[in-house]
């Protein structure tokens, strides 16, 4: 699929692109709001894509069952409504008016319109942004099932959202698409030195914030994230820039129970509370810190992590 070049005020926003979409692979593109809108507009011109917009409203005076019945007759879908209610895990809500649903369920229901789409391509804008976790989980499973028959593309501004259900994630900027390495990070894992023979080293992590240099003790750190190839250290909900690369940091921190859980993330294992399984090949780690912080976990790193934790 080809995307045309787009310029605003003489500045190139999107170069001409070619997207390879396949059934069975959920594609994700992480980009800013402006590019998202441009992409959506280009997809809207094509007749063969169903677009699910973030601001999709709903017939709020209908009950859930009535809406599904309406969607069924309008789209010519063949499965009975009762079966769909079960599949969508909405059985207990079938008599509830949509206006009275919890807000996360309301958005979940709007997203389910993609299930009735007849088009071979489905494009979703920010599907997970306003969903609560159980609904994210439920929707991720449905999408995975749907991807057997349809080509699915998720547009989001938030990398973590893309990682929930995408098999392949690209970052889009003015230079074009950049593949984010999620699944096959194996090849790049460096051979590590045997621990123990290291000489004395500084174990504080130097960071910068507002022109001040701040030194952190490794146990204080929650996790480290790589954004545009510079490391951001997260401590108690605040972020600090660090001049070291992720590889250097990983080497420094491995004796402190830190773990490279993803190509762009190092996490402090002491602070991991929960291992979240989104689908059979996408995982996240929830931390114990006060804020609701979640760090993605590559499938390839999962085995290594399980070994480390003896689970």
């Amino acid at each position, binding site marked *: 699929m080809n995307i045309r070049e787009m310029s605003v005020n003489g500045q190139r926003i999107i170069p001409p692109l070619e997207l390879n979409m396949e059934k069975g692979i959920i594609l994700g593109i992480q980009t800013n709001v402006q590019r998202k809108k441009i992409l959506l507009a280009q997809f809207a011109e094509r007749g063969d894509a*169903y*677009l*699910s*917009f973030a*601001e*999709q*409203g*709903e*017939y*709020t*005076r*209908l009950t859930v069952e*009535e809406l599904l*019945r*309406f*969607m069924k*007759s*309008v*789209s*010519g879908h063949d499965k009975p409504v009762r079966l769909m209610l079960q599949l969508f895990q909405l059985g207990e809500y079938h008599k509830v*008016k949509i206006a009275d649903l919890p807000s996360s369920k309301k958005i979940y229901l709007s997203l389910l*319109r993609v299930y*009735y*789409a*007849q*088009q071979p391509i489905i494009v979703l804008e920010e599907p997970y942004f306003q969903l609560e976790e159980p609904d994210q989980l439920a929707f991720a499973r449905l999408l995975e099932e749907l991807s057997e028959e349809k080509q699915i593309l998720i547009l989001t501004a938030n990398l973590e959202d893309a990682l929930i259900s995408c098999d392949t994630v690209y970052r889009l900027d003015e230079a074009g698409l950049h593949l984010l390495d999620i699944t096959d990070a194996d090849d790049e894992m460096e051979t590590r030195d045997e621990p123990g023979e290291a000489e004395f080293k500084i174990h504080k992590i130097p960071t910068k914030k507002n022109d001040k240099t701040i030194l952190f003790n490794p146990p204080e750190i929650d996790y480290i994230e790589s954004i545009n190839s510079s490391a951001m250290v997260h401590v108690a909900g605040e972020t600090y820039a660090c001049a070291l690369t992720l590889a250097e940091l990983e080497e420094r921190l491995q004796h402190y129970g830190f773990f490279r859980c993803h190509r762009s993330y190092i996490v402090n294992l002491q602070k991991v509370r929960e291992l979240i399984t989104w689908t059979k090949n996408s995982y996240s780690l929830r931390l114990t810190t006060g804020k609701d912080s979640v760090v993605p976990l590559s499938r390839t790193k999962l085995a290594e992590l399980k070994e480390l934790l003896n689970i």
Partner: protein
Amino acid sequence: MNVSLKRIQAIFIKDYKEFSRNYAVSIMILFPIAFALLYRSEAGDQAAIYAFIMNFSLAMLTSFVQACLIAEEKERNTLRSLMMTPASMLDVLIGKSALVFLISAAVLAFSTYLFGYETSNVMLLTAALGISIVLYTAIGTICGLYSKTLLEASLSVFPVLIIFTAGPFALAFEEQYPFLEVLRYLPSSQLSELLVAMEVGAAAGELARPLVIISIWAVVLTIISFILYKKRLMDQ
């Protein structure tokens, strides 16, 4: 553009449920009934009063409900999603218009009964009101297409209400201001003229003229509403 009865029916039922549960809109069916009861006892100029009630009801009920149904669908972005299903634009428009037509017909018939209006020619009255409902539905569609929200839609109906309902009354000043002659050709004035002519027992030729003018209005406005509907939905 393919039209499917099954989809039209689905849209009809969906809109009926939404209409009956949205009291801000469905309360409009009480106006014609209340007016019919209010003016029932008055003797004398029955045809003119009856024509006023019908004209008022057509604008207040038919146009208003149709405008609200379309505007609400736009406001909630459900129309855009509906356009991506196999349902065509025509399915949506026919489903909504059919609902509005049935509601209006039932309410107008009921208020005619309550008012106790008796006519010598039921067929002619039914035809005139039926064509008027089509015409006011088209006006409602146009109002709905030009408003983004439910609130805008309910306000946009008021100019229609004022021009069409008050038109026949402004004709009283025709001698002072000759240009008001134009108002004679409003469908509401024509409906009023038709009813008065029926009461005095005018000749068939005289009865046909208002009916033809109302029909021309209905055809022209329906075509305009179709074109606008298609154009404005493409722009979205």
